[in-house]
């Protein structure tokens, strides 16, 4: 094993040499001293203005999550997003809830697991559609948009990890330029054999969240 690692390391070290393996650029033609052209235009240095760019969004959320077979319980978590364009964003979430008792556990007074914690993370792409404004009375309008998200992640439940697919629909209202209010409905779908037969479960979540743009 040590020898293998040695070979790997050696190859890795040698790889650095490959960086210089490029086709050589053709040499520039020697300059003719008699034909120097003085540019008539003065060169101007371009200064990039320091603009406060706010494409990141972080925040927290809380709501209700319904676990298939295990009842509905409060859920809370953190969310971060990066807005790629007016239409697209990429989003990461972590959340936590607790599993209640399934019918079989209640009736037979058994426990399929002692560990009732349910935690998840996911990485999603989001697409803003149906942008618009929400009006509060005559004098105030807040930009809003509906969005759909889809992505993948992991769920830890009953001491086991599950590959999870997420789909969701949300509404984002900008209360101010930097404060977002989110209403979200999400489905977390994965396959499990926790209650005997292997099946796909859909765990539905609804939450309210606040995010800050920076």
């Amino acid at each position, binding site marked *: *094993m040590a020898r293998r690692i040695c070979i790997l390391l050696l190859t890795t070290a040698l790889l650095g040499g490959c960086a210089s393996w*490029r086709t050589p650029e053709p040499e520039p033609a020697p300059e003719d001293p008699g034909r120097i052209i003085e540019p008539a235009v003065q060169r101007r240095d371009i200064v990039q203005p320091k603009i406060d760019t706010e494409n990141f969004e972080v925040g927290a959320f809380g709501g209700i999550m319904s676990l298939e077979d295990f009842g509905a319980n409060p859920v809370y978590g953190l969310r971060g997003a990066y807005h790629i364009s007016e239409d697209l964003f990429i989003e990461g979430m972590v959340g936590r809830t607790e599993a209640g008792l399934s019918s079989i556990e209640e009736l037979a007074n058994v426990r399929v697991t002692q560990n009732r914690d349910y935690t998840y993370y996911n990485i999603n792409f989001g697409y803003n559609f149906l942008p618009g404004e929400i009006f509060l009375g005559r004098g105030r309008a807040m930009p809003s948009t509906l969005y759909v998200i889809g992505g993948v992640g*992991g769920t830890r439940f009953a001491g086991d990890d599950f590959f999870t697919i997420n789909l969701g629909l949300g509404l984002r209202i900008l209360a101010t330029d930097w404060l977002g209010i989110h209403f979200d409905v999400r489905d977390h779908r994965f396959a499990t054999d926790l209650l005997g037969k292997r099946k796909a479960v859909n765990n539905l979540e609804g939450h309210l969240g606040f995010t800050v743009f920076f």
Partner: protein
Amino acid sequence: MRRSTSAARVLLAGMLLLPALHSLPAQAQAPTEAPGRYPRVAIAEPYIELHTGPGRGYPVFHVAERGTSIDIIRRRTDWFKVRTEDRREGWVHRSQMLLTLQPDGGITELHDGTREEFTNHRWEMGVMAGDVDGARVVSTYGAFAFNESLSVELGASHILGRFSNSYMLTGALTHTFVPEWRLSPFFTLGTGVIRIEPKGSLVQPEDRTDQVGFAGVGVRAYLTRRFMLRLEYKSNLVFTSRNKNEEIDQWQGGFAFFF
């Protein structure tokens, strides 16, 4: 339950604190502030349009004319919140901002990532998902480039299978063959550790941590601005303590950005 209540309190406190912290600079944006707080540009086109919100569908409610100047308050994706000389605030699209002039007369330049920067970038971060011998994998990575061709990468993968779950932490050297191409192939070589947790129903349920070495090939495709797609295949060799080493094929693709 008690633990979850206290955690909920911390979250709630965080939710309340965050906006409070952020409102400090917001209060300082009152109209009485000193001039020069925001970058100022002059309008060189006949006019630019101010929208009510940061999006193409929001109505134009005002135009700022040539010869006047505007202050840039903030930017969100391709939209700039500006304030005109008569103190109206609205959102202007990037394409119109590029036609404005700096105080010294130079053209406003916005460095939003170009093909050239794609070739020369220093830092890169991304997320990927894919398949590892029939199991699903979710990965994230960060990379630092020494030059156009050679970069060092750190990665973490969560492999979610039917019979076991694994976590993998890796370090790698990556060589990009022709960095100036839009579709740019690379070769990677690295090592790391993998922690395999077999699922409870199996005969041999103890967790184990092994060293892993890998070689791989892939391609980066420049999309736009600072974004790229990345697709890769890695052949992993897990150095087990048993007689036979394990070979694992890993396919994954995803999205990355550079800066």
